[in-house]
C-alpha cells in the first residue's frame, strides 16, 4: 500500500503513484473466486490482479466527501499467468486528465510485474471523478 495519500490536484499527466507489492495468497484468490461466483483453475484470475491494482491505487486518493468515482472504461492485455502464492508489483500512472463540465476523466496506465520482473499484464482504466 502507498504510505501516504495522494492529493487529487497531484493527479496530472505523468504522475506516478507509489508502486505497490502484493502477495496473491490462496486466501485472497479464494475470496475473489467466491465474490465472482466462479471456480478456480489453479492460477490467479487475471482480473483479480487488475482489481487489486486499481483499488490499491485509487483508495490512496482522498475524494471530497459525498462524491463518487465511476469506472468508465477498461483496457487490458495479459502476458502470462501467475501462480497462487506469487508476489506482484503494480505500477500505475496518470496518462491523461480530461475535464468535462463538472466531471474529470482520469485515464490511468497500469503495469503489473511478477517477482521475476516479467510483465504480467498492462492496461488503461478510465475513471470519472468530480472535477
Amino acid at each position, binding site marked *: 500500500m502507498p504510505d501516504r495519500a495522494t492529493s487529487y490536484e497531484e493527479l496530472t499527466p505523468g504522475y506516478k503513484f507509489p508502486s505497490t507489492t502484493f502477495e496473491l495468497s490462496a486466501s*485472497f484468490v479464494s*475470496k*475473489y473466486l*467466491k*465474490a*465472482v*461466483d*466462479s471456480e478456480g*483453475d489453479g*492460477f490467479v*484470475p*487475471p*482480473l*483479480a490482479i*487488475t*482489481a*487489486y491494482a*486499481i*483499488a*490499491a491505487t*485509487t*483508495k490512496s486518493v482522498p475524494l471530497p466527501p*459525498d462524491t*463518487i*468515482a*465511476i*469506472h*468508465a*472504461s*477498461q*483496457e*487490458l*492485455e*495479459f*502476458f*502470462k*499467468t501467475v501462480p497462487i502464492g506469487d508476489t506482484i508489483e503494480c505500477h500505475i500512472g496518470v496518462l491523461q486528465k480530461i475535464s468535462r463540465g463538472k466531471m474529470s476523466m482520469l485515464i490511468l496506465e497500469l503495469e503489473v510485474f511478477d517477482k521475476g520482473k516479467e510483465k504480467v499484464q498492462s492496461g488503461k482504466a478510465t475513471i470519472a471523478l468530480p472535477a
Partner: protein
Amino acid sequence: MLTEIQEGKVFDPVVKHITQENINLYAEASGDFNPIHIDESFAAKTPIGGTIAHGMLSLAYVSEMMTSAFGQNWLSEGKLRAKFKEPARPGDTLTINGKITCLEQRDDVSYANCSFECLNQKGEMIVTGETTVKFSSDSK
C-alpha cells in the same frame, strides 16, 4: 474450450445474479470499498440512487466466458477493451454473450477477434467491448 475456432462462433453465455452480498464480498476481495458499492444510505442520496456493482465484477464474468472458450490462451495472451455503459445493481441478472467476429493472421500468428456484451434482465447494456486472443492454428 471451443472445439472449433471460426468466424461467427458464439460462446456459451454466462448468466449471473448480482446480490449486495456478492458486491460486499467483491469489495473485501479487491479492497475497493468505494461507498457507492457498499454503503446503501450513501448511495441512495447520490444521482445513481442506490448501490451498484463494481465494473470489474461484471468484467470478471466476461473473463469467465473467455476462459471457458479459450482456456490458457485467454489467461496468458488475451486482450480486452470494455466500456461500462450502465451500472449493474443488486437484484440484476446479467447475461454475458460473445462471439468470434473475425480471424486474422499476423506474422504467422493467428488471432481471434471477438465481441461481447453484458445485458441485464431488462435488456439494458451494462458493458460492451471487444477481446482478442492469440491461438495456435492447429486448434482451428
